[in-house]
């Protein structure tokens, strides 16, 4: 990377003063270490010229000692090798022992299989690793179950195999390790379903009298130990400190809005073309496939001929070709959707450009971590959108650069999710009274009433006519399932709330990086019909809600602010949708969908003495603006989609009879998000306040208090009012909102 790169950049004719901050992260040396390993494994490392890092040794020693472990070191720090080594050792020492590797996607399992086959080949240790999933031919299944000592699969497949546990007896009775790789992908509804699936797996394993060690690998998160406990029920040892080598890393904050004449995609293309012209291999991440293609095409038009776009669903050989092309210089740059973020091994490059904040620091650094080969210098460019969260990070670069990461929460108590897994569990083995809690007993009695279970002296047994497993989808909330169809193929399924929110007629839906236009949504039939079409705009539904507080779990009372957390009933109306082209709303269309009512988790904040110094109009606009700002900043505290938290505000709430803001999980049954916001509310309010007060606008704008999905079209809003409301709220300290 040339030394005068930056001065060349700022001298470029198209440069318009966009760089707001340049941060240089100094290089770090590797902390290497020796571990005495099985000779075959040692020879393998010697041949590849690998010396282990200290964090890898920590993992090896923890696994050897029989502990459950979570590893959260960054991308390209050798996590996979760290757990493969002690597992191979364990499988050599005990020639009957087996290991199960769980991946969120089939493609990832296939990639990992290649690594295991390579390790098997070079060490000469025969373990017959094999994937076993929907793609496994029937003719090979029996043999894999009888002979493979490492089986790689995914949660969706495992869900269907559990009722046939007796066919897996050989594998299960000697199962010694369970690896859960890319564990950070198990969040929200999917994550909670996977936690419940792992509970079912563990009760089957205890039926076969085994309790394997669990090894989790994840991107960096704020709460690795708690998350591992939520997901697996185990107390794990956390290995998070990175001892691998890094070169100097420069991080540029690029404010695209500074140049009013060029769109963000044009600026991204200019940067790609500029960097690749210096031989700097560049990977550029965008939010959608359409955007990736616009940027790649524009970069080629600017003379960067060897820039490709990349999308999910590429076959392994296509990916290998891109990898090889990057290695031998046939390809200078790749513009990709975040499909590349997910553990797919395309190797490291010199520079990474993030077009838009990918909704979490976890993802942002997974992507940024692609920059930097060994100890060579690297460059990361963050190019935020006109969006409150993006702009907040632009103005608070230290937050972006800091070590802090989001929490992942799971809510295995969500009855809407639990009930399906209880039915499945009872179909796998009789569910004994001592296995269930009081709350679960209620759900089981419901299932008995619906003739799905029977209560017998052996426990609850499944008696439904259809297989229990066919009625539970790991991606959805139990209940009505809407199928998203395209040309007769099932793209995905979604629950009713998500269908109304994302798959209304006219909606643009992204599925694995491809865009689809929804033509029809029939809620009664449970079908959403879509066609594939590349478009350069997107849509957002406009929603309004009314919220009724049902029960209060926690409460606090201050003089100026009171609040609480608990269960609510939400009635959500879908009133229309906006079409947005390059950040500009080009049309608003009405929608005719019936309102949807569901229970969820919420927190609420009220002002017993009002908000001093505000007129009634300012109060209305202030509560509304504060609600938007709090929601906008929430993804920094807890890993979720921007659409997962919603809110309502009112100058006189029917139940509290006070000016009140309510924030709730926009997920049926709740996902535990509101609880995290409640427990760290002081921080949430402070960051929301600085989001609004640091924004240079005068009356509120899309970078601070406007919400693109606001059902009342961002009316009324008052920036002054918002600041006053948030000031009051930010006086609430973290300890002011105690939780058990």
């Amino acid at each position, binding site marked *: 990377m040339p030394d005068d790169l930056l001065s060349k950049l700022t001298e470029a004719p198209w440069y318009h003063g966009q760089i707001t901050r340049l941060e240089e992260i100094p290089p770090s040396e590797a902390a290497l270490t020796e571990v005495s390993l099985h000779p075959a494994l040692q020879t393998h490392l010697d041949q590849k010229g690998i010396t282990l890092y200290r964090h890898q040794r920590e993992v090896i020693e923890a696994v050897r000692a029989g502990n459950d472990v979570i590893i959260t070191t960054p991308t390209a720090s050798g996590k996979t090798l760290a757990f493969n080594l002690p597992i191979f050792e364990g499988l050599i020492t005990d020639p009957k022992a087996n290991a199960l590797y769980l991946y969120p996607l089939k493609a990832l399992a296939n990639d990992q299989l290649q690594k295991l086959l390579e390790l098997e080949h070079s060490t000469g240790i025969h373990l017959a690793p094999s994937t076993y999933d929907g793609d496994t031919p029937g003719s090979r299944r029996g043999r894999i179950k009888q002979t493979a000592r490492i089986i790689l699969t995914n949660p969706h497949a495992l869900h269907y195999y559990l*009722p*046939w*546990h*007796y066919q897996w007896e050989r594998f299960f009775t000697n199962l010694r390790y369970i690896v859960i790789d890319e564990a950070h992908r198990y969040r929200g509804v999917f994550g909670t379903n996977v936690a419940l699936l792992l509970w079912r797996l563990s009760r089957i394993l205890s*039926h076969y009298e085994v309790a394997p060690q669990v090894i989790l690998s994840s991107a960096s998160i704020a709460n690795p130990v708690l998350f591992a406990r939520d997901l697996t029920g185990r107390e794990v040892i956390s290995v998070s400190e990175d001892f691998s080598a890094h070169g100097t890393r420069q991080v540029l904050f690029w404010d695209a809005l500074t140049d009013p004449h060029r769109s963000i995609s044009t600026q991204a293309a200019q940067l790609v073309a500029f960097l690749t012209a210096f031989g700097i291999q560049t990977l550029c991440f965008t939010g959608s496939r359409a955007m990736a293609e616009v940027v790649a095409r524009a970069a080629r038009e600017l003379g960067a001929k060897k820039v490709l776009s990349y999308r999910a669903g590429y076959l392994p050989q296509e990916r290998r070709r891109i990898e090889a092309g990057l290695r031998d210089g046939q390809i200078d740059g790749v513009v990709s959707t975040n499909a590349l973020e997910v553990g797919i091994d395309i190797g490291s490059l010199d520079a990474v450009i993030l077009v838009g904040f990918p909704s979490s620091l976890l993802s942002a650094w997974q992507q940024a971590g692609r920059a930097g080969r060994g100890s060579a210098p690297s460059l990361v460019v963050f190019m935020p959108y006109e969006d409150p969260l993006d702009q907040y990070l632009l103005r608070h670069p230290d937050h972006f650069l800091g070590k802090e990461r989001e929490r992942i929460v799971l809510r295995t108590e969500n009855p809407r999710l639990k009930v399906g897994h209880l039915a499945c569990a009872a*179909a*796998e*083995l*009789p569910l004994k009274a001592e296995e269930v809690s009081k709350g679960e007993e209620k759900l089981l009695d419901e299932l008995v009433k619906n*003739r799905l279970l*029977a209560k*017998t*002296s*052996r426990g609850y*047994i*499944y*008696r*439904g*006519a*259809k*297989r*229990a*497993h*066919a009625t539970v989808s790991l991606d959805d909330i139990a209940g009505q399932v809407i199928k998203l169809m395209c040309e007769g193929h099932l793209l995905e399924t979604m629950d009713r709330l998500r269908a109304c929110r994302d798959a209304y007629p006219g909606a643009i839906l992204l599925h694995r990086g491809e865009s689809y236009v929804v033509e029809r949504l029939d809620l009664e039939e449970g079908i959403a019909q879509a066609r594939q079409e590349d478009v350069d705009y997107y849509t957002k539904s406009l929603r309004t809600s009314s919220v009724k507080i049902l029960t209060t779990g926690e409460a606090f009372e201050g003089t100026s602010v009171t609040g609480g957390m608990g269960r609510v009933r939400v009635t959500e109306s879908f009133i229309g949708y906006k079409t947005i082209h390059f950040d500009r709303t080009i049309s608003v269309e009405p929608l005719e969908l019936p309102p949807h009512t569901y229970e969820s988790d919420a927190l609420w904040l009220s002002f017993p003495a009002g908000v001093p110094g505000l007129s009634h109009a300012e109060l209305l606009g202030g509560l509304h603006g504060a609600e938007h700002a709090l929601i906008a900043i929430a993804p920094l505290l807890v890993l979720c989609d921007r659409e997962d938290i919603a809110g309502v505000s009112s100058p006189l709430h029917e139940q509290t009879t006070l000016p009140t803001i309510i924030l709730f999980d926009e997920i049926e049954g709740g996902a535990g998000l509101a609880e995290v916001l409640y427990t760290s509310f002081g921080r949430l309010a402070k960051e929301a306040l600085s989001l609004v007060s640091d924004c240079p606008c005068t009356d509120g704008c899309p970078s601070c208090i406007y919400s693109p999905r606001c059902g009342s079209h961002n009316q009324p809003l008052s920036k002054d009012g918002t600041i006053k409301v948030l000031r009051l709220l930010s006086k609430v300290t973290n300890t002011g909102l105690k939780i058990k």
Partner: protein
Amino acid sequence: MCYQYQDVCDSLHGKVRRGEFGDCLTIERLVVVDLSLPSKVSSQHALLSELRLIFGIGSSHNQRLREEGYNSIPSLLTHPRWKEAASTLLNRWERPLNPAQVHATLSHWLPTSHPLFLHLLSLIPRARLLFFDLETLGLGGAPIILAAMARPSKEGIRITQYLARSLDEEIALLEQINQEIVEASLLLSYNGKVFDWAVLQERFAYYGLRPDHLPLHIDLLHHARRAFRNRLPDLRLGTVEERLLGIRREEDLPSEAVPEYYSAYLESGNPGPLVPIVNHNRQDVETLALLLDHLLRLPDHAG
């Protein structure tokens, strides 16, 4: 002994069978069926005449050997090229022929629908042949509520049905089925390889049990399909009965109605809805015996 379910016992003429895992109801019935199995001699002859059961002998070798006068596996013991293979096979089959070994060889070389499989029947004592048919509450992972097991006897077939009078009794029913299986060398079913036997294995495993013995298994659906594929619109048991065996079921309960009837019984305690279920299940297993007899009488069957 039957007091808790007195009505059920009475209306089904059943008796309570007590086991380690509890009680279930048994209903016994002797049905006169003309079931003529091939003689041991003719079956041995048929099995030993199939030269293609020797590794390396395909259609062309088979034809040439027959032209040269080698008509049976024992006759190959004098053949310079095949004598060793023939001797290995005959040693493995033992004398008298060991049904399990013969079955293994047939399964290796022939489709499961091949008529030679039916010759296994005469290598096994009649009382160790077991027809079976199950009724469940659904198609996947649902409990077994009723099983019919039948053995050939001098007069015809002796059918024993095992009924779970509540879902608590499923495990007792499995225990009785296990007893029956222990005393069987060969199972006969209709679509039982895909359905009934798979369900049995799954339900045993569900309660942490396993069958104490794994008998050989002949699925008559495979044989019926091979024999009647071109003559029947479909191969449902009802179609086979009506078109081939001349059986007309009066007021038969369709299989798919079994869960509903059983649930009605569970909820009301009234045994009325059990009667058609029990009759349906018994007729199914009776048909199995008649179908076997029919298959054995076909001209292309060497017996």
